[in-house]
């Protein structure tokens, strides 16, 4: 099918520019851009000056298959992704059981195939059962299609185990994703330590635990030469260490979740469990520093860290409540807060949400370039709405911290491989 999107504001994260123009989709790829005349028989869609950007590649999405399908299935996650302008989901292996063998990986790939309107790629566990003791079959899992290896929020506390995993992964060129956190200091923590945590009487963890975890991982990366990505850098005091690691030529990148750059610890308020995350929300100074690091490119990747939880897991006293928030559908509107407050430009945002994840995982998408897959999102960065979690979210779980929040930025249409998978436009 040939589609010409005309009168669009093209957001190019590679050149960090935006310009009015048209974009021609042919054979599932971007066939031409800029001043394009419609080939005969092409369907023409007028974008009315709205923004057209490469679809979001969301690194680190929890889908409840296997084990917790009542919280999120591949189908519901796919629908939420399409509605949120996410064209590729990278799933996490922190399922029950963990995705730690080629057989489990093949099972979820079969389950995912055809269930979702967007692309789905999978990560696998770094150690068996995410227990931090024995490494998984990294080679077989790579062959089966795993794009990265991570134990998610389980920190591999034994440095000998982690150093062997990194050494082995390096020989295969596999990407290892770590959760920088000192396991001892962060044990039992529900919030970031400080005045707020103390007055609420909640167990806190010092931001230093993230720095310590990151420093340890960097030492092991320096020792082994592995490819490493830190899933979430959320504290100001980790940033100099990240800068140093990059300057020293280590193959290191870092990510952050949308919540840690748009919310802070005070949002927890009177024990609102939808704001309970891993790691916990930070102080405002940390939020600002991390958002600025994202704008400068020091932090590479912005993701949703989508973690569906049912109502029962959240309707508990704060310490006992489950952590995590759904965000596939709110990632783009929430990211617009950084655009509207002047922290980041739209191309910078899509560098973090689309281009960098594609580059880090070696995927073809994430670019607005001739020959790239036509995975696209059309959106209006200024359209206002108030989020209602029960009527507006496609996820099976509705645990968003943005319920009732005023947001600006609406996804109008999403294209995957040239086919429109979401939106009424045109």
């Amino acid at each position, binding site marked *: 099918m040939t589609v010409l999107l005309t009168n669009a504001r093209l957001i190019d994260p590679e050149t960090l520019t935006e310009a009015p123009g048209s974009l021609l989709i042919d054979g599932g790829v971007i066939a031409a851009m800029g001043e394009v005349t419609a080939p005969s028989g092409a369907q023409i869609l007028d974008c009315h000056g709205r923004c057209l950007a490469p679809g979001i590649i969301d690194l680190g999405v929890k889908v409840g298959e296997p084990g917790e399908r009542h919280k999120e299935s591949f189908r519901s996650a796919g629908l939420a992704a399409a509605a949120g302008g996410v064209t590729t989901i990278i799933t996490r292996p922190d399922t029950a059981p963990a995705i730690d063998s080629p057989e489990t990986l093949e099972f979820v790939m079969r389950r995912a195939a055809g269930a979702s309107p967007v692309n789905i790629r999978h990560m696998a566990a770094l150690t068996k059962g995410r227990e931090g003791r024995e490494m998984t079959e990294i080679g077989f899992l790579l062959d089966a299609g795993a794009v990265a290896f991570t134990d998610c929020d389980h920190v591999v506390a034994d440095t000998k185990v982690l150093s062997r995993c990194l050494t082995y992964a390096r020989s295969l060129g596999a990407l290892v994703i770590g959760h920088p956190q000192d396991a001892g200091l962060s044990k039992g923590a529900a919030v970031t330590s400080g005045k707020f945590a103390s007055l609420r009487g909640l167990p806190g963890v010092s931001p230093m635990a993230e720095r310590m975890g990151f420093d340890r991982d960097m030492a092991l990366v320096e020792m082994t030469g592995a490819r490493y990505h830190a899933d979430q850098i959320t504290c100001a005091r980790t940033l100099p260490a990240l800068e140093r690691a990059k300057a020293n030529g280590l193959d290191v990148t870092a990510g952050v979740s949308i919540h840690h750059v748009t919310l802070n610890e005070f949002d927890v308020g009177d024990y609102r469990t939808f704001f309970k995350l891993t790691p916990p929300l930070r102080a405002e100074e940390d939020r600002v520093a991390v958002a600025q690091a994202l704008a400068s490119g020091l932090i590479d990747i912005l993701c949703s860290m989508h973690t569906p939880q049912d109502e029962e897991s959240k309707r*508990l*006293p704060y310490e006992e409540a489950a952590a995590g928030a759904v965000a596939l559908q709110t990632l783009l509107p929430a990211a617009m807060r950084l655009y509207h407050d002047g922290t980041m430009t739209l191309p910078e945002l899509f560098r973090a949400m689309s281009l960098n994840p594609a580059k880090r995982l070696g995927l073809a998408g994430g670019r607005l370039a001739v020959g790239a897959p036509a995975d696209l999102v059309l959106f209006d960065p200024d359209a206002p709405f108030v989020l209602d979690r029960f009527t507006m979210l496609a996820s099976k779980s509705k645990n968003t911290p943005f319920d009732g929040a005023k947001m600006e930025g609406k996804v109008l249409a999403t294209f995957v491989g040239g086919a429109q998978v979401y939106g009424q436009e045109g």
Partner: protein
Amino acid sequence: MTFRARHLLGIEHLAPDEIRTVLDLADTYVDLNRRTIKRTDALAGMTQINMFFEASTRTQASFELAGKRLGADVMNMAVAHSSVKKGETLIDTALTLNAMHPDLLVVRHPSSGAVNLLASKVNCAVLNAGDGKHEHPTQALLDALTIRRAKGRLQRLVVAICGDIAHSRVARSNLLLLGKMENRIRLIGPPTLMPAGVNEFGCEVYDDMRAGLEGADVVMMLRLQKERMDGGFIPSEREYYHRYGLDAEKLAFAKPDAIVMHPGPMNRGVEIDGELADDINRSVIQEQVEMGVAVRMAAMDLLARNLKAERGRMAAGVVV
């Protein structure tokens, strides 16, 4: 006389005039409690349920007595041993109780914020009898009443709070209340038992007890939980007593007329010298227990008045 609160979840949301209202009313209940006939009918016909998810003898007895002296029908639910063990969630327990139409719910729970959660699900007045490490508002109010009666005022006093500040809901509620009433607060204890961010609390922080007690009007000792005594937070019980246990020698650094308080139950020989605790010239620990009943009567009376007024408005169809 002002008291606007619907629940008593913490000192945090009380204004100074509301605190004064509770204390003023409590003073009248102190007088009542000293008579032979102690009954009033302020809560006559109303139902009070005490739900203690954490074992308690003193606080539960105090609330029970307070309710009975006000004429309420009081029921104690031994929740620590009941349906919670069968996997019922806190909210289900609350909804079940709510269906029995209680008017006052007194709740203690080991999780911070649990009482706030419960209060959002029921349509009666909820009193926090201690939630995790968060707040214990009636303890702070009874301490305030004790101080006001002993010192003749509740402002411009130097109050030293000593011991395990980090794990103490009593300390949190007290420093909020004493701060609101414009007192100078000192927190004294080993740094391992100080909460994170303590330097932003607006208090003076000491790890040297003698320096911290210098010139204090009120010395408030906290209980050190047994499970924190061995190596985890402090090296040993005896080292703790040596450095932070209150005895006559350390108390001599405070003002000559300084009073000694303790929320109980005491560990004699750990945080406080036994003889000092019994010294009627310095220790007001027994008065604190007496004030506890009066303050709880006052708080429940005021909440019941607001509840009756609210229900009256609802019955009259007034939208607030």
